């Protein structure tokens, strides 16, 4: 006995313009309703297959133009996200670096003040402190630039 789903299966195959396998062909032979629909479905399949859709000519150019501000916003968002992640990671060892430096400076000052005048010891320690602060500032200041450059290189490698 033929079921509705078998009929649907055969009719869909005919509508899609595919060839019938043995099982479906047997069903078509045995089912008067499907046999009746067969020529109509073949015509329909031809009609649908003949439907050609023209493509707009300058869609890519228009899209690139319209999407430019949105892409720029995406780029800013992605850079910020990466930046926050990288700076977060970079800040993790900072307390340790500062604590270690403070300890070294105290030790250095104690040692220097034993052999040099206090003012000169203080000057040398402060000089070193300024140098360390400058280096840390430069290192952390370079993070955004390096991150942006790295992201740009990644993009160029992936799709360039």
């Amino acid at each position, binding site marked *: 006995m033929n079921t509705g789903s078998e009929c649907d299966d055969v009719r869909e195959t005919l509508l899609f313009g595919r060839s019938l396998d043995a099982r479906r062909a047997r069903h078509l032979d045995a089912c008067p309703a499907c046999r009746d629909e067969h020529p109509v479905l073949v015509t329909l399949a031809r009609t649908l297959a003949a439907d050609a859709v023209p493509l707009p000519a300058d869609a890519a150019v228009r899209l690139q133009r319209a999407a430019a501000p949105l892409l720029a916003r995406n780029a800013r968002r992605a850079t910020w996200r990466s930046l926050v992640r990288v700076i977060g990671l970079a800040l993790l060892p900072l307390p340790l670096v500062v604590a270690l430096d403070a300890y070294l400076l105290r030790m250095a000052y104690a040692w220097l003040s034993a052999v040099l005048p206090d003012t000169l010891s203080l000057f040398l320690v402060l000089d070193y402190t300024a140098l360390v602060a400058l280096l840390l500032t430069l290192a952390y200041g370079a993070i955004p630039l390096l991150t942006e450059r790295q992201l740009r290189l990644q993009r160029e490698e992936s*799709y360039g």
Partner: protein
Amino acid sequence: MATDEDLIGGVASGDPHALEELHRRYERPLYQFLYRHTGGRDADDLAQETWLRVVRAAHRFDRSRRFTTWLFQIALNLSRDWHRRAPPLPVGDGDVPGAAFQPDTAADGASGLGSTGATDAGLDARRLLAALPEAQRSVVVLRYFHDCSEDEVAEILGCPRGTVKSRMHHAMSRLTALAREGGERMP
């Protein structure tokens, strides 16, 4: 070669080349989908808006899903919105069953885009599709023209697989009835 999912990741980081590549891959299927959904009216603008939405929402794309499913979902939502606010057709409205099979002697007034894919039997694919309710048309367009499986169609339409089957069944019945009606009208 970059996968669609890699490319959408690139779009999320603002890469124009990734968008260009995605657009090159899916420009045709997307445009055809929208064109058949709207009968050609505003398909250009809807396709552009679909891509812009893709760019806007790229960072929210779930990489465990297929890009095409997501793309067609966006397009489908836009075309539904379009159907809600579209102005009526000036002549030969495809939703009027009787108007679906007027011999194609004049240019398509609705789309103004020339050939409508009429066959020697006098049937016209675009008018046949226009005569289907929107839900059935989506299923036929996705299944027939885009080779989507029933599961994919169900995911795009956000309905159970059984609903897709039943819509396809009703669509086929309607199409065959219209085709018979159209054939009888031919001289």
